[in-house]
């Protein structure tokens, strides 16, 4: 990636978080503008004069100077023009932004809890995290959610004004509320990750960035004693195990390669190793929640050879996971695991009970199970039903090839 876009991705969210921490949340848009302006100036100046020796240092200095100028102008405005209007947080009294590594970490941590505030709906939380913490463009976010730029803009605006109503500064929640709020943060991070991992329409490179960003945010939570909790480590382990198969799961034409056919030498051993470390950290506290179960399942999938206990264990983990947290994907995966333990006929009975008609993977699963049970007509019927449920050309080709092979 060229230097400036790369810096934008890594620095934008950090700088906005620090500025919002000094200005207060009511000035979030000014903070965003200020950082955007800084990058615009960098593009112009660096283009003419060449890249400075310390590009991030340059960005921080310019942003700090800009912030000071704005404070001065604002101060002028509020002293001369609004003498009798009480402002909650007059900009003139704000401390100077602190662009040190500790401050970046702490400000981003506060920011993620702020953006995952319970007053917002999950869609707003995810969009705000992508925009403000990840520095993703409106068009990129719109593409990821299959919607228009104006919808995303509205979602961001509504989210921000709702937050301005409920809070002024960005803080970590008090310890009494921390666990509950952390749940919301983890849900948002996992949504973000799944968007990157499972979305079939967005370009491959962008999906990788979404996954990387989700992992970055979860890592941020491990930097603070209060939030470095077992469930955070479990989610990190889960994301590392999943991401380890990124290179193996699509072919040269972007076609889907299912787990059983993946070239295992393409699995990322380094990520699997990191996932193991996080899983160990996660299980040290005796906590055993949703992400622990999902991480344990993902861990079993990282083993290149299959032991006879693999599928019974996975089935058992899915049985427990579904009791803690129902999701259609887990219900489908459980049914697949059941077919590996009890055979396709038993799994067909269970699949028909879960009844997720209209869900692409429900029909693909049933097609697979009927195929195994030698009921070709029914298998074909479900493949045809799944064909109309996807717009992704690679998935369409994948289904067409299955129909042809019957």
């Amino acid at each position, binding site marked *: 990636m060229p230097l400036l876009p790369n810096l934008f991705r890594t620095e934008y969210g950090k700088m906005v978080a620090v500025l919002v921490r000094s200005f207060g949340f009511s000035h979030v848009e000014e903070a965003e503008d200020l950082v955007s302006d800084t990058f615009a100036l960098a593009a112009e100046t660096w283009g003419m004069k060449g890249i400075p020796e310390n590009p991030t240092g340059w960005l921080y200095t310019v942003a700090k100077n800009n912030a000071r100028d704005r404070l001065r102008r604002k101060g002028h405005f509020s002293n001369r023009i609004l003498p009798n209007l009480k402002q909650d947080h007059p900009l003139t009294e704000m401390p100077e932004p602190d662009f040190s590594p500790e401050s970046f970490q702490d400000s981003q941590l506060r920011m993620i809890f702020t953006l995952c505030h319970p007053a917002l709906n999950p869609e707003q939380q995810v969009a705000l995290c992508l925009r403000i913490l990840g520095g993703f463009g409106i068009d990129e976010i719109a593409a990821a959610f299959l919607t228009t730029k104006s919808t995303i803009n509205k979602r961001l605006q509504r989210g921000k004004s709702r937050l301005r109503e409920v809070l002024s500064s960005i803080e970590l929640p008090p310890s009494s509320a921390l666990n509950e709020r952390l749940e919301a943060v983890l849900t948002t991070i996992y949504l973000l990750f799944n968007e990157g991992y499972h979305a079939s329409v967005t370009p491959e490179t962008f999906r990788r960035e979404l996954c990387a960003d989700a992992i970055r945010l979860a890592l941020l939570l491990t930097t603070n004693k209060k939030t470095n909790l077992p469930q955070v480590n479990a989610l990190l382990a889960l994301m590392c195990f999943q991401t380890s198969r990124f290179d193996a799961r699509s072919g040269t034409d972007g076609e889907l390669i299912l787990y059983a056919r993946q070239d295992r030498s393409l699995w990322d051993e380094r990520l699997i190793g990191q996932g193991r470390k996080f899983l160990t950290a996660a299980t040290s506290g005796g906590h055993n929640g949703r992400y622990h179960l999902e991480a344990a399942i993902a861990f079993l999938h990282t083993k290149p050879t299959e032991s006879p206990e693999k599928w019974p264990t996975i089935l058992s983990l899915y049985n*427990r996971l579904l009791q803690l947290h*129902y999701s259609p994907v887990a*219900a489908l995966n459980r049914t697949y695991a059941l077919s590996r333990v009890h055979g396709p006929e038993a799994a067909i009975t269970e699949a028909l009970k879960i009844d997720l008609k209209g869900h692409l993977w429900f029909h693909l699963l049933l097609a697979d199970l009927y195929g195994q049970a030698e009921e070709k007509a029914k298998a074909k019927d479900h493949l045809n039903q799944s064909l109309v449920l996807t717009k992704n050309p690679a998935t369409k080709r994948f289904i067409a090839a299955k129909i042809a092979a019957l």
Partner: protein
Amino acid sequence: MQDFMMLFRSEENPDFHPSPEELQAEIKLWETWIGGIAAQGKFGSSEALDFSGKILHANGTVTDGPYIELKEIVGGYILVKAEDFDDALQLAQGCPVLSVGGKVEIRPIMHFD
């Protein structure tokens, strides 16, 4: 959707001394049956009850054992969400207590509001 409680009733069997493997197999059966209900998004909660118990009588005396006159005991319960009685009956099918001669009692939860 309506809430139902299923009570698992079976006769106490004093000769039942399962091996660890049998116990493990028994747990798997229950886990899979409950997992099947959870996979339909209809699971509420569930607990198994120990065979021991104490009974407090109206006259203040306390006796041992969860069963009073009947030899039948409640081994556990599950709370589920179901469309109606028929759906709840469907969910009860395959309950492991049935394969050891027990029965499932299905009762709608009453809501006072």
